[in-house]
C-alpha cells in the first residue's frame, strides 16, 4: 500500500505545526488596555486538555498530509473547529483568576492559525465536494446554530470580546439593528430604483453610457467623503422643508449614510440589469413577439426571468459591499457595528474593535453564501425565478 502526499495538506500541516507548538494559544492581560502576556497551549488549557489538543494536532497533521477521503477531511475540519471554539472558551476560565473581573483573556495567534488551517481544510474539502446550493445553506445554518449554541450556553463568556459585549449588550443589539436596516434598506431602495433604471437604459440606448458613467464616478468617491458631503444638503432640507425633520431626515446620522449606501448600490444593480437584459437570446425575444406578446408581457415573462440570475449577482455584490460600508456610517453618527470599531480604535481597545468587526464579517459572509446559492438555483431553473 502506498501513501500519496497531498500538496495542500503539506501547507496546512505546516500551519498546524507552527500554530500548535510554537505560537501562543491565548493572551492574558491584567486589564483591557495593557499589553498581553502570551500563553502556550499547555499553560492556557486545564491539565490534560492541553496535551489532548497537542496530540490531536499531531494526528491531524498526519491525516492532512496523506491523501485521505474528502468527506473525512471535511468532518475532521469541522470537528476540529468546534473543538477549538470550545477549548478557547475553557482557556478563558482557566487563565482568569477567580473573582477577578478586570483580567482579560483573548485568543492569540496560535489559536487563529489553528482555526485558519482547519478552516482551509474545510473550505478545500467543500470546494472539492461541490455541494448543492441548498446543502451549502444548510451547512451555514448548522454552523450558525453551533455558534449561537456556544454563545447562549455561556462557553465563551470568559473571553474578552464577550466581556466587552456584556458591558454594552443593549447598545450592541441597537447598533446591530441599525446596521442591518442601513445595509438592507439601501439595497431595497436601490433595487426599486435601479431595476427600472436598468430596463430604461436597456431600451433607450442614448441614456445608457451617460447613466453608467455617472454611477461609475460616484463609485470612485471615497465612502467617508460621500457620507460627509451629504450632511450639508440634508441639513438644509431638514431646516427648510416642512415635515422632513419629523421623518428623521437630519444632516448627521442615518439619513446621509442611507443615501450614500443607496448611491453606491445603484451601479451594480443598474449595470447588471443592463448586462442581463442584453444577454437575453434574440431567439427568445423573437419567439415572444411571434406569439403576439406585448412589450410589457415580453419584459415580465421573458426578459426579466432570463436576466434574473445576472441581476441577482448584482444584488449579491451590493449586499456584501453595503454590509461592509455600513461600518463607516458610524463616523457621521449613523450607527451600526462601526460604532464599536471606531470607539475601539479610539481607545486602543482591540476587543471592542473585534466586537464590531466580527459580526460585520460574519454577516457579509452569510449574505454571500445565501445569495450565491440563490443565484445558482435561479440559474438552474430560470423559468421559475420570476
Amino acid at each position, binding site marked *: 500500500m502506498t501513501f500519496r502526499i*497531498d*500538496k*495542500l495538506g503539506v501547507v496546512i500541516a505546516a500551519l498546524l505545526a507552527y500554530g500548535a507548538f510554537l505560537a501562543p494559544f491565548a493572551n492574558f492581560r491584567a486589564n483591557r488596555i495593557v499589553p498581553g502576556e502570551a500563553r502556550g497551549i499547555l499553560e492556557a488549557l486545564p491539565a490534560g486538555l492541553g496535551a489532548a489538543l497537542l496530540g490531536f494536532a499531531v494526528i491531524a497533521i498526519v491525516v492532512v498530509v496523506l491523501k485521505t477521503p474528502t468527506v473525512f477531511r471535511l468532518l475532521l475540519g469541522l470537528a476540529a473547529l468546534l473543538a477549538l471554539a470550545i477549548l478557547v472558551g475553557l482557556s478563558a476560565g482557566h487563565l482568569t483568576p477567580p473573582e477577578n473581573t478586570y483580567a482579560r483573556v483573548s485568543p492569540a495567534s496560535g489559536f487563529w492559525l489553528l482555526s485558519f488551517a482547519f478552516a*482551509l481544510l474545510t*473550505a*478545500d474539502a*467543500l*470546494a*472539492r465536494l461541490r455541494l448543492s446550493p441548498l446543502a451549502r445553506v444548510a451547512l451555514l445554518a448548522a454552523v450558525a446554530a453551533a455558534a449561537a449554541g456556544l454563545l447562549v450556553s455561556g462557553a465563551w463568556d470568559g473571553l474578552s470580546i464577550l466581556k466587552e459585549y456584556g458591558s454594552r449588550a443593549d447598545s450592541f443589539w441597537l447598533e446591530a439593528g441599525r446596521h442591518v436596516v442601513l445595509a438592507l434598506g439601501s439595497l431595497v431602495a436601490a433595487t426599486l430604483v435601479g431595476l427600472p433604471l436598468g430596463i430604461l437604459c436597456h431600451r433607450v440606448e442614448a441614456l445608457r453610457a451617460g447613466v453608467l458613467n455617472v454611477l461609475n*464616478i460616484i*463609485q*470612485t*468617491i*471615497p*465612502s*467617508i*467623503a*460621500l457620507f*460627509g*458631503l451629504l*450632511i*450639508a444638503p440634508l441639513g438644509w432640507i431638514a431646516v427648510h422643508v416642512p415635515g422632513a425633520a419629523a421623518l428623521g431626515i437630519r444632516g448627521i446620522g442615518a439619513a446621509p449614510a442611507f443615501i450614500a449606501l443607496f448611491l453606491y448600490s445603484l451601479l451594480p444593480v443598474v449595470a447588471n440589469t443592463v448586462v442581463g437584459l442584453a444577454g437575453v437570446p434574440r431567439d427568445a425575444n423573437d419567439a415572444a413577439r411571434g406569439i403576439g406578446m406585448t412589450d410589457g408581457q415580453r419584459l415580465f415573462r421573458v426578459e426579466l426571468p432570463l436576466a434574473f440570475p445576472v441581476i441577482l449577482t448584482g444584488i449579491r455584490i451590493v449586499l*456584501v459591499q453595503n*454590509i*461592509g*460600508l455600513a*461600518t*463607516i456610517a458610524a*463616523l*457621521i453618527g449613523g450607527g451600526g457595528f*462601526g460604532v464599536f*470599531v*471606531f470607539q*475601539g*480604535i479610539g481607545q486602543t481597545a*482591540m476587543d471592542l*474593535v*473585534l466586537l*464590531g*468587526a466580527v459580526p*460585520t*464579517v460574519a454577516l*457579509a*459572509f452569510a*449574505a*454571500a453564501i445565501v445569495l*450565491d446559492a440563490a443565484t445558482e438555483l435561479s440559474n438552474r431553473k430560470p423559468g421559475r425565478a420570476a
Partner: protein
Amino acid sequence: MKRLLPNLLRLAALLVLIAFLVQPALFEPLLKPLVQANAPAVYNQGSLLSLTLSHLATVFAATLAATVVAVGLAILVTRPIGAEFLPLSRSLVNIGQTFPPVAVLALAVPAVGFGEKPTLIALFLYGLLPIFENAMTGLSTLPPAVTEAARGTGMTAWQRLTRVELPLALPVILAGIRLSVVISLATATIGSTVAAKTLGEVIIAGLQSNNLAFVLQGGLVVAVLAVLIYDGFSALERVLSRRAGRV
C-alpha cells in the same frame, strides 16, 4: 477623433487637480461659500500635495506587492504542479471578497499597531483578490489553439509562460490591477482613522470640525485621481489587447 473630447476633459481635470494641489489658495473663493464665516476654506493642517503624494505612494506600494504575489500565485495554481490548489484558491477569493475593508483595517491594527502599516496590509490583502481572480481567469482561458501551437514549436514550459501565456493574459491581469487600484484609492482614506498619512486626513478633519469644504476637497481629489488612473489603465488595456489580438 471620437476620443478627442473625453481626452480634452481628462487633460483639463488633470491640470485643475495639479493647480489645486500646488496652489490651493487660488481656489479659496470657490470653496468659501461652503464654510461658516471664520472657518478656513482650504485645508490648513498640512500640505495637500504631500498628503496626495503619500496617499499615492501607499496605494502604489500596496498594489505593487499585491500584483507580484497575486500573479505569482495565479501562475502557480494554473501549472500542473499547483493544480491541487485551484479549487481552494477559487473559494478563498470568493470568501476574501466578503471581508469589509474597514474590518481588515481594524483587525490589522492589533497585529502591527497604528500608522501606515495596517493601511498597507489592508490595501495589500484587499488588493490581492481582484488581481488574483483576473490573472487566474486570464491564464486559464487562453485559446487552446495558441497554447498547442506554442507547445508544437518546441517551446519549454518557461518560454510558453513568458512569451505566450503572460503576454496574452496581460490585458485581463491589468483590468484586475485597475479594479484593485481604484478600490485601494478610496479605501486608503479610511486608513486615516488609524493615523495613516492619506487624503482621508482632510476628510476626517472636515467631518470633525463640520467643515464641508475640507470634506469636499479631500473627496474630490481622491475621486479625480481614481477616475484618471482608471482611464489610464483602460487606455493601456486597449493598446495591449489590440497588440495581443484579443479585442
